């Protein structure tokens, strides 16, 4: 056992599967940042004479119906995908954790109101609500980001509330209260550090779902707007070209690998950080 209890990084990197997930995430970040310098062609370098070429040494992923290089578009779409999912999960994280803490630690009417609203939002299939929000606000990157963020707020609120509720009953939180520590101090020193584990896990898993949601919205024409490349929209465009399988396979593969990477990291984090497993371990040691 390591000296510090939460050297999550080391634990994570020691697990080959999680390390692979982290590697892919790192690669994606590199693509997102350096994409324009790495892509062999411009995203909208239309060349109808080269339309619908299968994969070759010149165009590794082939070309689309307008002769655009699919590899370049896949690479350049990484940035927008990551951007939408990071920002939307960021919105959901901040709002959800705040609401969850408010509901879970202070209970009372705040809890009642927040949880009723959460129940209502949970009554909609997530995708449907996102579509409805985008439908109302008009399609585009910003509205898609907001829509995905809004539908994930309740997820974070629930996770945080559940942890806060459980932590409130922990003897060490009671011990702090018995000493005379005020609610703000207790939240800062005892609750927040201890809810962070499930919230971090949820963040990673939500990033995966957000990538999927963004792809689905863009597929439906409600997210990223052409001509800006996006994985979801590329799939929609390729749908009609049943002979040009590469138009459908590679953008989809990009989504799949990205989502898989975030899921692997999330699962790894859960195993390393999950408080239930940890406490189960400790109680076994205890008696």
């Amino acid at each position: 056992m390591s000296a510090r209890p939460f050297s999550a990084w080391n634990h994570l990197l020691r697990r080959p599967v999680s390390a692979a997930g982290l590697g892919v995430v790192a690669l994606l970040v590199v693509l997102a940042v350096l994409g324009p310098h790495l892509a062999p062609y411009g995203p909208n370098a239309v060349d109808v004479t080269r339309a619908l070429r299968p994969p070759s040494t010149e165009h590794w992923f082939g070309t689309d119906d307008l002769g655009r290089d699919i590899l370049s578009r896949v690479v350049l779409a990484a940035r927008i995908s990551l951007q939408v999912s990071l920002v939307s999960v960021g919105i959901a994280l901040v709002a959800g954790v705040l609401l969850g803490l408010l509901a879970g630690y202070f209970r009372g009417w705040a809890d009642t109101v927040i949880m009723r609203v959460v129940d209502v939002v949970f009554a909609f299939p997530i995708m449907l609500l996102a579509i409805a929000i985008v439908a109302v606000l008009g399609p585009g990157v910003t509205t898609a980001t907001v829509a995905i963020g809004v539908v994930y707020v309740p997820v974070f609120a629930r996770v945080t509330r559940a942890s806060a509720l459980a932590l409130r009953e922990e003897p060490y939180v009671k011990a702090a209260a018995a000493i005379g520590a005020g609610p703000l101090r207790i939240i800062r020193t005892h609750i927040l550090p201890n809810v962070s584990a499930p919230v971090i896990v949820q963040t990673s898993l939500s990033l995966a779902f957000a990538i999927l949601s963004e792809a689905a919205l863009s597929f439906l024409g409600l997210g990223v707007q052409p001509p800006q490349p996006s994985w979801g929209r590329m799939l929609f465009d390729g749908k009609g070209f049943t002979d040009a399988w590469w138009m459908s396979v590679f953008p989809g593969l990009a989504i799949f690998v990205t989502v898989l990477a975030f899921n692997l990291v999330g699962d790894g984090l859960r195993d390393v950080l999950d408080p239930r497993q940890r406490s189960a371990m400790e109680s076994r040691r205890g008696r």
Partner: protein
Amino acid sequence: MSSTAGPGEALDNRTGPLLDVRNLCVRFPGPREGRHRSWVHAVEDVSFTIERGRTLGLVGESGSGKSTIGNALTRLVQPTSGTVRLDGQDVLAARGARARELRRRIAMVFQDPYASLDPRRTVGATVREPLDVHRMLSGRAGRKRRAAELLDLVGLVPETAARYPHELSGGQRQRVSIARALAADPDLIILDESTASLDVSVQAQIMNLLRELQDELGLTYLFVSHDLAAVEHMSHHVVVMYLGRRMETGTTDHLYSRPAHPYTQALMSAVPDTDPATERNRERILLGGDPPSPLDPPSGCVFRTRCPLAAGECAEPVPKTAVSGDHDVWCVRTEESLSPERLRRFVH
């Protein structure tokens, strides 16, 4: 208000008891039945005092309300009625700085050494927390030095400060809990089943440590436990509780040698004797059934539904009866239970 209680402070109060609890009631909302809301009577009309430097043992089985009393004193639960005075100051009515000062003076050690320390904070941070909360000892260095002193006091090496709870054994963790409780120079320490989840050999270490600390620092304890032998070992005075009520109170010596309440007698006779020979040959009082629900306690004596001596009069309110000077019992049949041939059953 100075943060460290000097010997000259509050001399005027030194004559009275340190802690004076009167008519404490704690009720929790129970399930709702239609429009009628039922109440869990966790603690009903409990009074006791603790003299400075002494230990009061609060003994009872699960559901007796003994832990709720500890929680009420540290204001983890809000009492329904009653008063709590520390050195003559009303603890429950205090607000603001005064309330914080009173909180400083009442500390608590919890049962589960695995759950009562924050897994993400070092031992040092945990022990320093009361100092931080009460803004005692300005300066990091001063607080660190104090933490090291405290660890030394409870028999841990100073290096322990840098370690995390999961690296310690149960006994070591409980020592950390005690160091935390001592940090802010409290007058009263509530020990809520503080040795219950430790192994026998470690329990003894902790009980010895607590007694040494009491002698050294003049501490006052409220020792809450289900363990009759441990309570006898630790306490000067004892309160026996059942279903939120006092059954019997008295000095430890008197109460343990002449238990007057049938419940106390049953409780004592249920403790297995370490000597196999006496254990086999003695008669014991076996109680039938289980305690009634605290949602709907019986009228009069709450023990009457399981009491071997119960009679019709037990359904009436029970007056306090003095057994001797410092020994009271809440039982109208106590003459019955004091009869010599009944006593012989468990006095060996």
